């Protein structure tokens, strides 16, 4: 079960099995678009991303939930 851990803006990003994401231990509900192959989540409703690392960094940078 592949696990990716990164730190961004002093927040910890954990990605498990390339389909589960948590930030600072908080699980982030994800949406995967099978037609486009892109990821998104409710925290950023206007955008989609190619991979979970990019999504996670965007959440940290722009969502008020991690300020």
């Amino acid at each position, binding site marked *: 079960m592949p696990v990716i851990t990164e730190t961004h803006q002093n927040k910890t990003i954990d990605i498990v099995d390339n389909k589960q994401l948590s930030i600072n231990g908080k699980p982030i509900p994800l949406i995967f*678009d099978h*037609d*486009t192959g892109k990821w998104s989540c*409710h*925290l*950023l*409703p*206007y*955008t989609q991303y190619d991979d979970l690392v990019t999504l996670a960094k*965007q959440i940290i940078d*722009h*969502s*008020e*939930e991690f*300020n």
Partner: protein
Amino acid sequence: MAIRKDANTLNLAEQQEFVNAVHALKQSGLYDQFVLRHANTPMSAIHRAPAFLPWHRRFIFDFERELQRVSGNPNLGLPYWNWPNGDSNASMWNDNLLGGNGNPSSGIVETGPFRTGQWQVINSNGVATGPLRRQFGQSGASSLPTLTEINQVLNITPYDSAPWNTNSAPSFRNQLEGWMGPNLHNRGHVWVGGSMLPMTSPNDPVFFMHHCMVDKLWHEWQLRFPNQGYLPVSGGQFGQNLTDPMAGTPNSSVGSRPIDVLDSTALGIEYDQLLTGTPQPQPSPDITVLSLDASSSNGNIAAPGEIDLFEFQLDRLRQVILETFGDSDTLMILFGPDDFTREIASNDDGGSNFNSRISMALSAGTYQASIRLYDPGRTGDYSIQLRSDDTSSPAPQIPTLIVDDPALDAEITTDQESDLYQINIGTTGRYLIETHGTTDVRLSLFGPNNQTSLIASDDDSGAGLNSRLTLELNPGLYYANVRHYSTFGRGAYQIRITSI
């Protein structure tokens, strides 16, 4: 009527009025309630789905009403962000209205009425997290939608299509929202960046101007295609269909369903100018009147997504059949009586050969029926007829309420049920008509000697949630109508009339 204007055209007084009203709402805590309402409604209920447009129409309508209330100006209209003329050089971004871009490195807005120190944003729990941020053109959208792109989207029909999400095509909604095509709405959020990116995006007051522009374009699309209705009418996820209550939409004098907000003019919304190619608002789309027991009327769904409307009146309680004929697979919905947002029946294949057929007892009043094709991507001809049904069960009998008799036991057992009673008044006098029981009902009295002239109605004047009418009545035949307060409510009740 409030007129919504291009934000670039506001004079100084109008700019100050808007800013002061927004700040007043912020200080009262009400502004943040709008942020929380948007942030905490499930994303799939209000974005990437058909209800995206009606939900946000109702949302900004409520906000506009609050601006009017707190400013004391009932004619204050929400300004719209005219994207083709709304880049960083536009006057709407000056320090009298929105303030400009954020600091190049931090994104913090440092000028204007919503600058740091004067404005704080909140998270989805209502906790203040810091200043407003903007980063024009830095988050993946370097430019705003052009007039050419807008007109391209305005030519798309139908309103929406299966699978009713980001992959819907053809879909005006999906292209206006931005998941396909030139990307209009999403691009505006991303172009501003900063606080406009997350689900708490109403933290930036430009959100409301942005969605005012979105709503203006939907309004213009409706004017260009008056026979194109909201889709899906039924069969979609709950909260997305025409008569479903939308998530996160509080009760008010304006309903919470898509059908309740389809008519901008009826909501008192008017825009300063429309785009070239958009006709001025018409009184109402073409409605064909049906007469009972007349020959069938021809109908034609000429464009994909089109919805045809028919209207008829009944002078008394009647058992009727409303039916379509022909080779088209139709879907029929019946609304009324007298309230054309109140759905009382629907049918797909109850007739022959995939036609629709509704057979039921209808009380006196005016009804509307909508006809569309089962496949919103098709066109086709059909005919429709309204006729009396004297052949099936006997004509509906109206129970009689006798003055001073014991209460009659009754029950509302189906959605939208309307119970009718006749009352023969022999002597001029004062009478009390009331219901009893635990069911929340509404009582209306019609007459004398007809079922359409409303005399009085009541909701909760009786004991608990019961109805009560006290009236002076002359001799004649009267009709009492009892409905559940809730569209889908059911329950037992008693009804009685006494002389007093």
